[in-house]
């Protein structure tokens, strides 16, 4: 059934629970950060780009689906998540009537919580002990496991709130089990017990150059910051990041790598990006998308006689690979689309995305083209 996202629409409750429903997820990552802090303001001229993978949910049970999303930007991923959740069904917004600094987002089908809420040390506590938020010592994994398990078992939880404005731990808020429960933060896959509970996991791997370019764009305008302070901040956190956050990549079902473009020599603006989606093979209910011919290696430049592209054009790559000893499929896109409408051309060549009709994905993207920021994430649920 076509999602309620652009087409006239069965209720969202029908979407997830029916047998052999599949969720095909396409995210445009654009020259835009997967980091909320940079979303709208930063890359006003960059275009969306598209990556597609497919999750098939054959379960008819009512247990919530638990998805983990890991990346380093202090729950600033929520712009990405906000669009994603609104595409799953319903607009996502913070809990009504609750703590205004809550990090939680709730839509009709999805609840997204920020794992910063499981900090065992608040900002002052971390300063005293000399630990960063990246350090496992600053996080209560026992509570995280207990509560995610409770949600999975269909029980509501009283989840603490970490207030990013004050840096303190606020009184808890009640979260009831939704259809889709997303935990986003620094350590969704760090603890083995929590990992076991995840039905699907995504790791956003932003390369150092891109991270640096984005942070400069995000912070340079702020009073107090300088190029040196931004550099110092990144390098001071790097040891903990490499030790605790980065290793989670090996456990993720999908790793989305954001790298500098290879189409523009010596580019340091970071407006055009190369995005690679590394999809693990053999994950239950998850079939990686393929381009033209499953299992082959394909390098494709769609620009030419049928599709006109502006500089620097678009380049796709698809092929099998190994990643941390796992068999994976890699789908990669470099460049940017000239017109959103031309995506339909590309969509028609992507296979295994199980959209209901030709053009559905493009229609969804067009519908969401007005979302704040050039990057829109969309989801086709069938």
């Amino acid at each position, binding site marked *: 059934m076509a999602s309620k996202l652009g087409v006239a629409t069965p209720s969202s409750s029908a979407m997830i629970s029916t047998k052999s429903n599949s969720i095909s997820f396409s995210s445009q990552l654009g020259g835009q950060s997967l980091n909320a802090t940079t979303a709208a303001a930063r890359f006003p001229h960059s275009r969306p780009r598209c990556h597609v993978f497919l999750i098939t949910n054959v379960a008819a049970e009512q247990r919530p689906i638990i998805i983990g999303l890991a990346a380093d930007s202090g729950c*600033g991923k929520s712009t990405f998540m906000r669009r994603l959740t609104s595409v799953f069904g319903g607009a996502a917004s913070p809990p009504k009537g609750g703590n205004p600094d809550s990090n939680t987002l709730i839509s009709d089908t999805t609840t997204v919580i920020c794992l910063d809420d499981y900090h065992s040390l608040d900002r002052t506590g971390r300063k005293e*002990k000399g630990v960063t938020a990246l350090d496992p010592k600053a996080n209560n994994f026992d509570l995280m496991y207990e509560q995610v398990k409770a949600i999975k078992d269909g029980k509501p939880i009283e989840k603490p709130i970490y207030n*990013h404005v004050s840096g303190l731990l606020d009184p808890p808020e009640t979260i009831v089990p939704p259809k889709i429960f997303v935990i986003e933060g620094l350590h969704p896959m760090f603890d083995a017990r929590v990992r076991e509970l995840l039905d699907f996991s995504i790791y956003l791997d932003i390369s150092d150059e891109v991270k640096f370019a984005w942070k400069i764009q995000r912070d340079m305008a702020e009073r107090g910051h300088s190029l040196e302070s931004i550099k110092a901040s990144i390098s001071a956190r790097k040891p903990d990041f490499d030790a605790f956050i980065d290793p989670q990549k090996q456990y993720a079902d999908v790793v989305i790598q954001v790298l500098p473009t290879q189409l523009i020599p010596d580019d340091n603006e970071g407006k055009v990006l190369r995005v690679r989606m590394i999809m693990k093979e053999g994950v239950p209910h998850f079939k990686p998308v393929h381009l033209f011919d499953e299992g082959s290696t394909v390098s494709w430049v769609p620009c030419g006689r049928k599709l006109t592209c502006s500089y620097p054009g678009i380049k796709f790559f698809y092929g099998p690979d190994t990643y941390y000893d796992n068999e994976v499929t890699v789908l990669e896109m470099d460049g940017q689309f000239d017109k959103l409408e031309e995506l339909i051309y590309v969509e028609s060549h992507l296979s295994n995305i199980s959209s209901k009709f030709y053009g559905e994905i493009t229609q969804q993207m067009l519908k969401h083209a007005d979302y704040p920021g050039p990057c829109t994430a969309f989801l086709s649920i069938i």
Partner: protein
Amino acid sequence: MASLASVSFQTASFLASPASASLRRSNSGSGALQVSSVGPRPCPSLRLRFVAMATPTDMNDKLSQSIKEAEEVCVADNGSGECAAAWDEVEEISAEIAHKRVKQSETKDPLEEFCKDAPEADECRVYED
């Protein structure tokens, strides 16, 4: 109001004066709450106002302060846990500022805001065929 986190107390005289009424309205921006309060203050017309604009200034002050602190700590002992924790705090505050900036730049249509909370209201009726 989801995005407001701090309260700014504005002087009663400024707010209460009729001349400032229009200024007050234009300052409402994305959701100012006006709550009349008779606190332990001598002036009964003191209003508590939650102003979106106060938050960025507070946060910016916090940011400048934390950057200074981080630079001091790291001069003394670069590569220590304290140094990393100090810069981590800078990163956290920067992220929060940028996050708030994005939230506020998502221009709020007052009607949309109202309809989010009261979709059955007459003003929010949608006619679709």
